[in-house]
């Protein structure tokens, strides 16, 4: 048991979580529309990281390792929730309300990401977090050329959807 065997790992784990918590929360927001689901997913990811942390030997970078675990948990959790819920739920507007300026633009971007299929959403999230194509390939296990082609297409798709949403919402602001 990781928790009983190595209590000295806790400060290191806290640092890991503190450094990457914003990125993990953004990932939860992109995968889950419901606020309590996001919270649960975040905890599921934290538990998986805590369990796997003693086995981390540094073969991959800390960030790559963390995203591997987080995306594996998120995909499984999202599939589980999809099975549990037949109907789609509305976006939780209390956490990410379409306000003005950058907040509005973030909401538009989030909406574009949430509309993607599971594989594209995963790629988009990794790209938006600023990971390189090499790192994305390492995390997903997808072929290098496939990652390149899809990223290129996704970049254009996201930018276009984002611009269209901005133009559409401009008169309302």
């Amino acid at each position, binding site marked *: *048991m*990781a*928790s009983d065997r190595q209590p000295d790992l*806790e400060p290191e*784990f*806290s640092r890991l*979580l503190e450094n990457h*918590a*914003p*990125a*993990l*929360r*953004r990932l*939860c*927001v992109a995968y889950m529309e419901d606020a309590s689901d996001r919270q649960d997913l*975040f*905890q599921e990811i*934290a*538990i*998986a990281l*805590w*369990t*796997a942390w003693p*086995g981390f030997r540094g073969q991959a970078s800390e960030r790559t*390792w963390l995203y*591997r*675990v987080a*995306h*594996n*948990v998120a*995909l*499984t959790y999202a*599939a589980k929730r999809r099975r549990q819920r037949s109907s789609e739920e509305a976006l939780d507007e209390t*956490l990410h309300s379409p306000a003005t300026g*950058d907040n509005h*633009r*973030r909401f538009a*971007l*989030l909406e574009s990401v949430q509309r993607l*299929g*599971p*594989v594209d959403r995963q790629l988009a999230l990794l*790209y*938006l*977090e*600023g990971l390189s194509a090499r790192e994305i390939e*390492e*995390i*997903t*296990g*997808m072929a290098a*050329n*496939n990652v390149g*082609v*899809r990223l290129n297409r996704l*970049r254009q798709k*996201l*930018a276009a959807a*984002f*611009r269209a949403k901005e133009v559409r919402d401009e008169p309302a602001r």
Partner: protein
Amino acid sequence: MSRPDESSDELQRIWQEDRGNAAEQETSMIVQLVREKHRSFQDLVRAESSTAYVLSLSFAPLTGLAAWKAHPWLPFGLGYLIMTAALVAAAIAVWLNQRAIARPIDLSVRQYHQQLLRLYEKRIRFFASSQYWYLALFFGCEVVLYPLAVHFLPKVWSIVLLGVLLVLCAIAFQRSESAQEARLRQRQDELRSLLEEMDRP
């Protein structure tokens, strides 16, 4: 009009500016929560395994002892012996299945999902095999109960009654196994389509 590269960088900037409600929970609180949740999860897994072991490994010595004590009376001795063998087989199957559940999560997404596919296949085989040792256990019970049935009914009717009960039991196990298998097959299909989607350029 901005260039595509610029708008891409702009998207990353906008995305990363969202701190994702960082103030929602302190890290130390999350770590505490994770420790507790992890422990309770392990307790749950341990409780599930121990229920299976208590049922199989504590009853197996009892039925074994009963088989030895009752060996002069063939139906009792044989019935208890069959029950003992079924319980031991169940304990081994549960132990092997529990070992298969422990899997690394820090693999690449593709490797992780391929591993999940294999795990679901193992679970399907586990459910399929479990009906046989449940049936063997039930059959052992019936052999033990046979003298009692003969006491109240003619020999032929006793055999027919116990046979019908065994068939009904087999049908019930088969239905339950099919439902579980269908659920797991559906998950396998979802995983396969995800992996196919990953290969698509």
